C-alpha cells in the first residue's frame, strides 16, 4: 500500500499502454468497457421489448384489427392483423427479453460491472477475462433469440414460463418447434453468462476492497449487487439444469416433464412418465429469487442516490443490510406462491402463503427507512432524485398488491389475471426501470464525462411517471374484474366486453409512455457528445467512484485509496462541507467545483 505522498510517482507504470481499437472497445477486459457493452446491448433490447409490448397493447385495444403502416408489411398473409399464434409469441418474447436481456444485464452486467471496482477501490474485477467471457456469452444468446423470431410459428409461444407439455411436445403449439429449442439455447447461454458474472462479483467484492473498506462501510449499491450475485450463483444452476432437461425432453426422448399417453394435436406421447409440476418447481425455484435479483441492486442504488440528494445519512444502515439479507434468504422459500392453483398439495399452499406474507416484512422495513432518510433532509429535486423518489412511490404500490395476492384464497381469484400483470409491472417498471433511469442520470456523468440535460430529463421523468401510472394502475381494475392475461382475445366469451374502453385508454397511455422515451434517447446521445462537462464529483457524493476522473482511466485509481469512513457522511456537523468523501487521500477533489445540476435544482 503506497502512502498518500507518493500518489503521483510511478504514474506511467500504472497507466498501461493504450490498447488498439479492438482490444479497447470490443474484446476489452476493462470492467468499464464491459459495463458499457452490457448497457448498450440491454438498452437496444429494451427498445425491442418495448415494441413487443406496444403490439400486445394494440391487440388488447383493437383486437383483430389491421395495424396501420407496419401491419401489411409484417403480416401479409393475415391481412395486416395480429394472429393468435403471433400474439402468444408477443408476450412470451416480451417477458423473456425484458427479464433476461434487459433488466438482469442492465443491473448486473452494466451497473454491476461499471460500479463494483470503482466503488470498492479496485483496479478491475477479480477475473477480468472471465468478465469478458460473461459478456461475449450473451451474444450466442442474442443470436439464438433473434433466430427464434424467424423460426416457424413466429417464435416460441409457451410463455416466458415455458410450462410443459406445451413447451416440450413439438406438436403442442406452432411455436413449440425449433423456436422453443432456440429459446432454451438462448436462456442456457444467459444462465452460464450470469453464473460466471456472479462468481466474479462475489470474489471481487469479498477480496478486492480497498484498505479500510469494511463490509459495514460498503455503499448499499455494493450490498445489493453482492447479495444479488449470491442469489444468482445459488439459484441459476437450478434453472440451467431445468433448461437442459427440457432440451433433452425435446430432442433426446427423455420424459422428465412429459406424462405418458397424452394426445396432443394428434401426437401421442408414449413411454414417458414425466411430471409437468417438476418443471414448475424447478423453474420457480430460480424465477422467484430472480424477482429479487431484479430489484435488490436497484434498492441499493436508490438508497445511495436518495442520501446524496437529500444530503443526509442513510437511515438505519444495518437494518437496511439485514433486510436485504432477509429478502434474499426468504426469497428461496416462497416460490410455491406461483403454484397455488397448480394442483400441488393445499397444505403446501398454506406453507408458501405464510412465507410469502412474511417476505413483505423486510421490504416494508426498507420503505420506512427510505422515508426516514428523506425526513429531515435537504432535498434537491434533480432528475435522478425524482426517479428515485418515484421508485419508492411505485414500489409501495407493487409491494402492497403483493400482500393481497399472497393470500392464497384471493390468489385463486386473481391468479392469471391482470391483477398480477399490474403487480409485477409496478415492481419491475415502476420500481426497477424507474430506478435504472435514476441510476443512469446519476452515473452518466461518470460514464461519459458529461451531464445529461436536466430540463429534458425532467420532461422525460414527468411524462414517464404520468403515463406509467395511466398504463399500469387501471390494470388493477381489470384484475378486480378477473380479466385474464395471455389471451389473444379476452373479449371472446363476451363477459369482459365492457372493459374494452378501459383497455383502449391503457393502450393510449402506453403509446404515450413509449413516445416519452424518445426524449431520453435524444438526451442520451446528445449529452454524450455535447453535454455540459462534468467534473470528478458533480453531485458532491461521497463514494469512491467520484474521486477519479470522469470517465475514469483504465485501472481506475492512480493509487489505491485508504477508506476512513462510511459512505453516508452527508451534512456531518464536524465537517465544513455537507459531504465528506470516504477516502481523504484521493487526488484532485478541489477540481470538482463544477456542479451544474445541483445548482440548477436550487434555483
Amino acid at each position, binding site marked *: 500500500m503506497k502512502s498518500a505522498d507518493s500518489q503521483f510517482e510511478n504514474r506511467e507504470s500504472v497507466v498501461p499502454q493504450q490498447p488498439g481499437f479492438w482490444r479497447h472497445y470490443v474484446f476489452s477486459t476493462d470492467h468499464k468497457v464491459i459495463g458499457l457493452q452490457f448497457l448498450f446491448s440491454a438498452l437496444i433490447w429494451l427498445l425491442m421489448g418495448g415494441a413487443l409490448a406496444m403490439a400486445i397493447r394494440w391487440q388488447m385495444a383493437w383486437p383483430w384489427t389491421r395495424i396501420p403502416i407496419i401491419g401489411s408489411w409484417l403480416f401479409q398473409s393475415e391481412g395486416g392483423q395480429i*394472429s*393468435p399464434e403471433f400474439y*402468444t409469441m408477443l408476450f412470451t418474447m416480451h417477458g423473456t427479453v425484458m427479464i433476461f436481456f434487459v433488466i438482469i444485464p442492465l443491473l448486473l452486467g452494466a451497473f454491476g460491472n461499471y460500479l463494483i471496482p470503482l466503488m470498492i477501490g479496485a483496479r478491475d474485477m477479480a477475473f477480468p477475462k472471465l468478465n469478458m467471457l460473461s459478456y461475449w456469452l450473451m451474444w450466442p444468446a442474442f443470436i439464438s433469440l433473434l433466430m427464434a423470431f424467424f423460426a416457424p410459428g413466429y417464435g416460441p*409461444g*409457451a410463455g416466458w414460463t415455458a410450462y410443459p*407439455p406445451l413447451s416440450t411436445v413439438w406438436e403442442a*403449439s406452432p411455436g413449440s418447434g425449433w423456436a422453443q429449442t432456440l429459446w432454451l439455447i438462448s436462456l442456457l447461454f444467459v444462465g452460464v453468462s450470469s453464473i460466471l458474472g456472479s462468481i466474479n462479483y462475489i470474489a471481487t467484492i469479498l477480496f478486492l476492497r480497498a484498505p479500510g473498506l469494511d463490509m459495514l462501510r460498503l455503499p448499499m449499491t455494493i450490498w445489493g449487487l453482492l447479495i444479488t450475485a449470491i442469489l444468482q450463483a445459488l439459484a441459476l444452476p437450478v434453472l440451467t439444469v431445468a433448461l437442459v432437461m427440457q432440451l433433452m425432453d425435446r430432442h433426446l426422448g427423455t420424459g422428465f416433464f412429459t406424462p*405418458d399417453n*397424452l*394426445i396432443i*394435436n394428434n401426437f401421442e406421447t408414449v413411454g414417458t412418465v414425466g411430471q409437468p409440476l417438476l418443471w414448475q418447481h424447478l423453474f420457480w425455484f430460480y424465477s422467484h429469487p430472480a424477482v429479487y435479483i431484479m430489484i435488490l441492486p436497484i434498492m441499493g442504488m436508490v438508497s445511495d442516490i436518495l442520501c446524496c440528494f437529500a*444530503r*443526509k445519512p442513510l*437511515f*438505519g444502515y444495518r*437494518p437496511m443490510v439485514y433486510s436485504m439479507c432477509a429478502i434474499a434468504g426468504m426469497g428461496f422459500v416462497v416460490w410455491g406462491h406461483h403454484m397455488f392453483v*397448480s*394442483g400441488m398439495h*393445499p397444505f403446501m*399452499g*398454506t406453507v408458501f*402463503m405464510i412465507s410469502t*406474507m*412474511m417476505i413483505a*416484512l423486510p421490504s*416494508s*422495513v426498507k420503505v420506512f*427507512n427510505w*422515508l*426516514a432518510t*428523506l*425526513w*429531515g*433532509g435537504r432535498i434537491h429535486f434533480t432528475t435522478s432524485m425524482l426517479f428515485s*423518489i*418515484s421508485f419508492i*412511490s411505485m414500489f409501495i*404500490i407493487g409491494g*402492497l*398488491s403483493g*400482500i*393481497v395476492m399472497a*393470500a392464497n*384464497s*384471493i390468489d*385463486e*381469484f386473481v391468479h*392469471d389475471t391482470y391483477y398480477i400483470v399490474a403487480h409485477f409491472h409496478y415492481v419491475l417498471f415502476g420500481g426497477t426501470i424507474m430506478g435504472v433511469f435514476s441510476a443512469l442520470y446519476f452515473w452518466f456523468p461518470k460514464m461519459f464525462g458529461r451531464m445529461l440535460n436536466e430540463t429534458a430529463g425532467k420532461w422525460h421523468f414527468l411524462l414517464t411517471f404520468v403515463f406509467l*401510472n395511466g398504463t399500469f394502475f387501471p390494470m388493477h*381494475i381489470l384484475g*378486480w*374484474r378477473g380479466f385474464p392475461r395471455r389471451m389473444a382475445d379476452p373479449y*371472446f*366469451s363476451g*363477459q369482459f366486453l365492457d372493459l374494452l374502453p378501459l383497455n383502449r385508454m391503457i393502450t393510449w397511455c402506453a403509446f404515450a409512455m413509449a413516445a416519452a422515451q424518445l426524449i431520453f434517447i435524444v438526451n442520451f446521445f446528445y449529452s454524450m457528445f455535447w453535454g455540459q462537462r462534468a467534473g470528478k464529483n458533480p453531485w458532491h457524493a461521497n463514494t469512491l467512484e467520484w474521486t477519479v476522473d470522469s470517465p475514469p482511466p483504465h485501472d481506475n485509481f492512480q493509487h489505491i485509496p485508504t477508506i476512513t469512513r462510511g459512505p453516508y457522511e452527508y*451534512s*456531518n456537523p464536524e465537517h465544513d462541507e*455537507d459531504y465528506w468523501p470516504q477516502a481523504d487521500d484521493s487526488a484532485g477533489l478541489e477540481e470538482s467545483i463544477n456542479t451544474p445540476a445541483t445548482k440548477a*435544482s*436550487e434555483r
Partner: protein
Amino acid sequence: MDRFWSLLFLAVPVLGLLIVLGAVFNVGLQNAWLPESIGPRTEGIDYLFNLFHIIVAVVFVGTGLLLAYSLFRFRATNRQVASYVHKSIWLELLWTIIPAGTLVFLAMHQLPYWQANKEDHRAFEPAGAGSSDLETPTVRVVAYQFGWRFIYPGLDGVFDTRDDVISENLLVLPSHEEIVAELRSLDVIHSFAINKLRLKQDIVPGLSPRIWFMITQNGDWEINCMELCGWGHFRMSARLRTVSPKDFEDWLMEIVQTRGY
C-alpha cells in the same frame, strides 16, 4: 418548482384512493370491483379481498402522504442544512413489529378460508394417497386443446360405463346442490375457472384434481381456461348452465332415453 414535485407525488395516494373508492362504491366507475357472486363459495374470498384492500389502502395512503409531506417540507429551497441523523432503534422496532403483527394476523386470519375451499372435504384426496373411498364426482371435466368435455356417470352412477352422458362445451348442473367435479386434461395444462365463483384450478395432465362448489342461482355463466394452452387459448370457453335439480334430472333422462339405453 420543488412544490410542484411534492404535489405530483401527493397525487399518487389521492388519485389512487379515489379510483379504489370509485370502484367499490360504483361512482364514476361502473362494474369495476368484484364480479357478481353466484355461490356461497365466494363469501369468504370476497370478505378477504375487501379486508386486504382496506388494510393495504390505509398503508398506501399513509406512506404516500408521508412521502409527499417530507418532500414538501424538506425541499432544498426551504432548508439551509439537513439534520445529521443515522438511526433510531425505537423507530426500527416500531416499524418492524407493527407490520410483522399485521402480516401474521393476515396470514392466520385467512387460513380457515383456504382450508374450507381446498382441504376440508371428503372429495379431497391428498396427493399420492390413492384412497378409493372418495365419493363419485357429479361430473368429470375433460379439457383439451381447445374445448371442454363434460362427462356424467349416467343412471348407474358409475363412470366409464355405456350409459355415461357426454356434453361438449356445455356444463349443465343442478343449483343449490353441492357439486364435486373431477378434472382431467388430455394434452397440455389447462385451468378450469369460473370467474363468478372465484374458482380456479389448474389441470395438469396426469393429475386429476377435484373441486367442489355450489351455485345458488339458475342461469347461464362462463367457464374459461385460465392457463396458457396454445394459440387457441382465448377461445377455450364453455357455457355453465344451472337449473333446478328437477330440471337437471329431466335433462339427463332425456339424453339417456333418446340414446335408448
